[in-house]
């Protein structure tokens, strides 16, 4: 078995048993990156030397008998997490030269537990996108391809496209990601891996470049549900530096994966049966529910009546917050500065932001500025906040009778890099199943469940109660076991 084929848990066991060293494991991944990254473009920054130094230090710690829970495990870090001394771009030209002097809480937690960082992975600019085509550092390619059309390059999804593509292609054992409207779950589903957006407040946002503060949440992607559970355990935890971080205990998520689903009530929201949804998606959904029933769960139809307003609500709230969060990129203190010799302050702003931001970011800044403007605030932002409360209430009501909700993760499989690029609204529809969990602050897990006719992965989503990721992991693991998903992408390390 090639070292890059280990699951994260398998790698930890192999390291524990001395079957492999962190240096060997890290080098195997770096070799894969060297070979495949020119094509996939998953990594913006490869931290080869630093990763090998970390791996050596990790092997030394292990030799001394001090090994953290992630000791020696090579990971990829979404380039939205600030990493001390390492370029952090947020996929944007405006941060193209930004080297933060501080480490985000989440990445610091991973380092504390012994992880090795292979590099910083690509993303849609400022995490705004569903295809990873908006990055200033070029699009990421999905390592999967259609069986009957192998030459069409597919998107990995977004915004955490680099994270998902890297993990799917075996260029990392796992990766950090962030999810504002589906940015963990949609790329995980497109790339045939697992990914969880935990409850809002579970992971600290400190040191993560902000997109939409009330929706952003960090989480892991990995090739198995249990690997996600192991990573989340390290990433999560109360952080006094983030006022929205939750001061609640972090349970043993990995243990919850083995709980089983016997006796659980699984909700099936009728509003998620979209008109025009591919039949394969509907069939896979039904298959997933059958697997759960087979393992002793009960499935019940539920109603989340405000679902149809979720997408428009999201595309008001998220740009509104983004328009304010991105005001700090002004060319004054850090990042790109574009100025002519005689530029005044306004000219400096205009030149810097015109050159620094890509079209999708500009679009969202304009939408956000518009919906917060005097005369429009009540009609858009305020109304969106009210609907957001109703969407939350829908879930509160549902979780009085069910323990988890299962839906498709995405309305389609990965699409071609040239598709859906003309109309932003078509692109926004990718998030239709995922945005509700962000608006309600609930945990949502994507788990690979099958392939479409063209051999592309499809995922299911499990949504749980706030701070009940354990049940989400249990249901996800049950689906994973039954699906027995063994398909692999064409582009991957070790072949």
């Amino acid at each position, binding site marked *: 078995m090639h070292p890059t084929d280990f699951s994260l848990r398998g790698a930890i066991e192999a390291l524990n048993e001395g079957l492999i060293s962190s240096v060997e494991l890290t080098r195997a991944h770096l070799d894969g990156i060297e070979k495949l990254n020119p094509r996939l473009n998953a990594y913006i920054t490869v931290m080869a030397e630093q990763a090998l130094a970390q791996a050596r230090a990790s092997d030394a710690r292990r030799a001394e008998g001090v090994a953290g829970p992630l000791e020696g495990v090579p990971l990829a870090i979404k380039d939205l997490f600030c990493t001390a001394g390492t370029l952090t771009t947020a996929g944007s030209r405006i941060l193209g030269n930004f080297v*933060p002097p501080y480490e985000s809480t989440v990445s610091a937690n991973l380092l504390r537990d012994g992880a090795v960082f292979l590099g910083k992975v690509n993303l849609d600019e400022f995490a705004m996108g569903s295809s990873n085509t908006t990055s200033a550092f070029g699009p990421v390619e999905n390592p999967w391809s259609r069986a009957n059309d192998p030459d069409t390059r597919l998107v990995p999804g977004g915004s955490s496209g680099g994270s998902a593509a890297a993990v799917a292609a075996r260029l990392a054992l796992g990766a950090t990601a962030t999810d504002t409207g589906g940015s963990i779950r949609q790329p995980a589903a497109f790339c045939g891996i697992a990914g969880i957006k935990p409850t809002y407040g579970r992971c600290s*946002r*400190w040191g993560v*470049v*902000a997109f*939409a503060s009330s929706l952003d949440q960090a989480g892991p992607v990995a090739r198995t549900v249990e690997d996600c559970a192991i990573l989340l355990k390290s990433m999560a935890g109360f952080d006094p530096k983030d*006022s929205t971080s939750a001061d609640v205990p972090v349970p043993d998520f990995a243990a919850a994966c083995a709980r089983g689903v016997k006796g659980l009530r699984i909700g099936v929201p009728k509003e998620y049966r979209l008109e025009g949804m591919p039949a394969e998606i509907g069939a896979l959904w039904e298959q997933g529910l059958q697997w759960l029933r087979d393992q002793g769960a009960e499935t019940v139809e539920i109603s989340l009546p405000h679902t149809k307003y979720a997408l428009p609500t999201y595309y008001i709230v998220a740009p509104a917050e983004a328009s304010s969060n991105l*005001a700090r990129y002004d060319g004054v203190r850090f990042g790109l500065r574009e100025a002519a010799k005689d530029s005044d302050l306004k000219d400096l702003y205009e030149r810097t932001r015109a050159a620094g931001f890509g079209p999708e970011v500009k679009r969202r800044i304009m939408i956000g500025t518009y919906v917060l403007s005097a005369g429009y605030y009540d009609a858009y*932002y305020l109304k969106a906040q009210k609907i957001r409360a109703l969407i939350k209430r829908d879930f509160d009501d549902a979780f009085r009778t069910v323990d988890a909700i299962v839906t498709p993760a995405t309305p389609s499989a990965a699409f071609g890099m040239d598709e859906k690029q003309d109309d932003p609204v078509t692109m926004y529809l990718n998030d239709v199943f995922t945005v509700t969990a962000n608006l309600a602050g609930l945990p949502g897990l994507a788990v690979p469940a099958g392939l479409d006719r063209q051999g592309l992965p499809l995922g299911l989503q499990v949504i749980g109660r706030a701070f009940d990721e354990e049940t989400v992991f249990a249901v996800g693991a049950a689906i994973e076991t039954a699906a027995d998903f063994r398909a692999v992408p064409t582009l991957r390390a070790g072949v």
Partner: protein
Amino acid sequence: MSYTLEGRTGPWEIVVGLEVHAQVTSNAKLFSGAATAFGAAPNTQVSFIDAGFPGMLPVINRECVAQAVRTGLGLKAQINLWSRFDRKNYFYADLPQGYQISQYAHPIVGEGAIEIELADGSTKTVGITRLHLEQDAGKSLHDQHPTKSYIDLNRSGVALMEIVSEPDMRSPEEAGAYLTKLRQILRYLGTCDGNMDEGSMRADVNVSVRKAGEGYRTRCEVKNVNSIRFVMQAVEAEARRQIEIWEEGGTVEQETRLFDTARGVTRSMRSKEDAHDYRYFPDPDLPPLVLEQNWVDQLKASLPELPDERRARYVAMGLSPYDAHVLTLEKETAAYFETVAKGRDAKIAANWVMGDLFAAINRTRTSIAEPPVKAEYLGVLLDLMKDGTLSGKLAKEVFEAMVETGRSPGAIVEERGLRQVTDTGAIERIVAQVLEANADKVAEYKSGKEKLFGFFVGQTMKAMQGKGNPALVNEAVKKLLG
């Protein structure tokens, strides 16, 4: 008779409301741990949060919240147990986040009131609309380089209280009295040091004018006035400008203006059309600020005595309302007075503090915080007068010696032999000598020129170098003149 300004068309009434920005006294900023000391080298008190770096998040400073609540309690105002921070969005080089975190829709403190004292001895109540917490911006320095602007972020993120009054003031004097009283309350509470020359307190002055009996006319806001005197000047200057416009048939446009202190006029800064759309919305990085009533009660219980209460107490101690007012203006003066008055006659203590001490402070260019005579020493001086050791005249002499040397009254009395003579035998001996030496005057006295009595007393005192107890000297002169 209420205050008016005379125009060509008759008298005009002035309407004034103030928005005061008061820097919260705290060691750290409102949302970061950076220090707040005044006068530090530029950009040395800046955290990554204050500089708006990517991924940085605000965390509320509990002490700043406590200070705002204390201030609200001191203003007899409603404390809102639920308040919220909003973002006020605008671009400027010294505003690193691109927004100011403020409390727009839901301030921490609601309606309250301040009683102001006016020169004619009357009082007036000025309503407080609200008090909210917000971040200060940094400072742009345009005079450091011919073509560049420099930015100092030391102030960026410092906690401010914006205290908004009702438009209840009707004259420059009332505006001055309001600001004086507000500053006094803040300083008593210890929630703002009130140093206007260091920028710890600045006022936005809203002014309009009207004819008697009218509703409000359009107001203009004069921004960032940084002394009480300038506020009073700005009110009058702006009112006169508006009167002229109205009287010439024009219309006052709502706008933001600046007060030119050199020329004593206000100048337009930006009109309503140029006004920013601040796009206020709740800051998603900060959950609502929820206070426990219990905590507010604890702060209330530990509140220091406020100027109004202290003044009432002084009046009850026997001081005139005027003396009580003067002694409570600055809390340092009140503290000095209380040390002197403790266990002594309050009226005498007040006279010494307001008379000799204030004069000495003026003369020596010192302050009540670093007085030329220690309060304890002045107290001892009063004791020495009371027990007869010193006459009033000698006491003044000792006081002046204390100003000069800083030594204790006891030491000065001993050193200079200033002790008052109360030995009646000794006094009578001197009186006898005086009468003997002035036999002709004694004869005149006895023939009816009684005015000479004072002459004999004076001569005796002179002979005793002022140390004779005046009452005993009087008695002895009377006795020996038969």
